[in-house]
């Protein structure tokens, strides 16, 4: 409900007109009801604002959902979805595309491929070392992430300062300013399939969060369930990052907030994370495009809102932490 109201309000806000009644008329006319509409407004609502609003909702849901899942699977409430190197992989992919002078579409494909490739390499290390524990996977993620940061640093170093470097930095701060309906269609199937699977597995994710030993004594096919869960969560993050650039904090703070509201049981906290992530991102992106005459990069806002929020959450839970 809150989400739908948020979507409507956000559709109403923008540089052209801030009148919700005009937007309501546009929507009503689309539903076949005869009301006076402003033709420019129709174009703005459906071609400019709607794709962007939907994108922010989906991306917020994706990041928050995969953060919630990662935190449970890795038994650590301080983990964010780029633990296994998705974000750094995507950043390297996007930067490579920028350096080659490729267009937006290529950049997105590269970012997605880079993110998935990074997770794949991360998952390869424990297999090579014949130690499939979670800890090994986390350490492997740190290694891959660290290595990719250096690769990214080299790319920034050789990038041409005025154009390419600026593009890389801007990409890394995250933005939905140039979102198109086409891109939305590209990530929608990933979102639907992965989030359905994760919602279905939410109770099994509780069991994964007990650790390997307990999960195995409960007869859970650990490798299978954990593989599905990690692949889904990584696909979600990689898809989100590929069209919006890296956006910090959402995947860390929102699952935390959700657990505080619903308790730790993932059958409740995962759907709530998904919804709150969507609402949070919608709010952030609406601020990003309305607060000033220039677009504010998303990571700047998520940091300004997310970090104090996180501090507040910690304050509320201070007695529980030892």
């Amino acid at each position, binding site marked *: 409900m809150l989400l739908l109201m948020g979507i409507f309000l956000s559709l109403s806000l923008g540089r052209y007109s801030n009148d919700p009644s005009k937007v309501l008329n546009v929507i009503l006319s689309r539903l076949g009801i005869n009301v006076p509409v402003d033709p420019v407004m129709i174009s703005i609502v459906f071609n400019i604002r709607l794709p962007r609003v939907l994108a922010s909702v989906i991306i917020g849901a994706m990041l928050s959902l995969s953060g919630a899942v990662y935190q449970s699977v890795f038994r650590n409430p301080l983990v964010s979805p780029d633990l296994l190197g998705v974000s750094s992989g995507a950043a390297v992919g996007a930067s490579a595309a920028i350096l080659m002078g490729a267009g937006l579409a290529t950049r997105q494909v590269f970012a997605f491929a880079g993110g998935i490739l990074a997770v794949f390499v991360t998952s390869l290390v424990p297999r090579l070392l014949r130690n499939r524990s979670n800890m090994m996977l986390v350490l492997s993620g740190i290694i891959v992430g660290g290595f990719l940061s250096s690769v990214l640093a080299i790319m920034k170093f050789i990038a041409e300062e005025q154009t390419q470097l600026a593009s890389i930095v801007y990409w890394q701060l995250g933005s939905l300013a140039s979102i198109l309906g086409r891109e939305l269609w590209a990530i929608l199937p990933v979102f639907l399939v992965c989030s359905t699977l994760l919602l279905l597995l939410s*109770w099994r994710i509780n069991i994964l969060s007990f650790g390997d030993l307990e999960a195995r004594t409960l*007869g*859970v*096919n650990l490798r299978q369930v954990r593989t599905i869960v990690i692949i889904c969560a990584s696909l979600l993050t990689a898809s989100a990052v590929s069209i919006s650039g890296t956006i910090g904090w959402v995947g860390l703070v929102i699952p935390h907030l959700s657990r505080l509201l619903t*308790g730790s049981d993932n059958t409740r906290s995962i759907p709530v994370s998904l919804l709150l992530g969507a609402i949070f991102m919608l709010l952030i992106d609406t601020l990003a495009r309305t607060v000033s005459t220039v677009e504010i990069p998303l990571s700047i806002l998520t940091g300004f809102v997310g970090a104090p929020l996180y501090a507040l959450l910690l304050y509320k839970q201070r007695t529980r932490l030892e």
Partner: protein
Amino acid sequence: MHSLLQVKDLGFSYDGSRQIFKDISFEVQSGEIVCLLGPNGIGKTTLLNCLARLREPLQGSVLLNGEDMADLAPRNVARVIGYVPQTLLPSFDYTVLEYVVTGNAPWLATFEKPGPEHYQRAEAALEQMGISHLAQKPYTRISTGELQQVSIARAIAQKARLILMDEPTAHLDYGNQLKVLRLIKDLSAKGYGIVLTTHNPDQVLLLDAKAAIIDHQSIFHFGAWQDILTEELLSAMYGVPLRLIEVEGIDRMVSIAPSL
């Protein structure tokens, strides 16, 4: 009729060369308690983990109701065997009920979630353990003794017939140790088979249990305690003089150390 659990010539090694234990054979029937005894580091927990299929043995086999465990799906093993680890390491503050309801996992399909009947089963298990009042408490904020009971309640909710316990009294004060032993006794009277590891040979006598001993030379002994527990074996195994004496007034044998 097959034994609940039958261990045949079991051997284990972590690296394939250094043998931790070998030639271990014994059986557990419903309603029986078996205590695994042995000096530190001899492989008691490793043996227990082999029985729970947490580790693959190097030699030999473990039969569950007559079926080789290696051929069973993990889910089917978990329908028979419940495992109570020495310590739980909670990472999120699930309520006790949310935790115990996960005992239903081997009875649910992968994408299935527990329904009202599964929550009822979990509540019944809590009631059986006498800890219904803890149901809505976060399991991160109850005492170690209560956590042990919660863990056993989950094995009951799991409908396990055989409960494996790794040092169930390790982190408990003396009163709670005796309460847990009492509980184990009750469970065996209800027909559960129980295998537990312990550092205290007196617990074998308290529980009137069978003893499975890996001694200091890694030789395996198994039988009713009356048949295999001797002062010689206990003293040699632990490397200190130990006595087995009948104590008047409590009508039982005790394993006890003479003055130091």
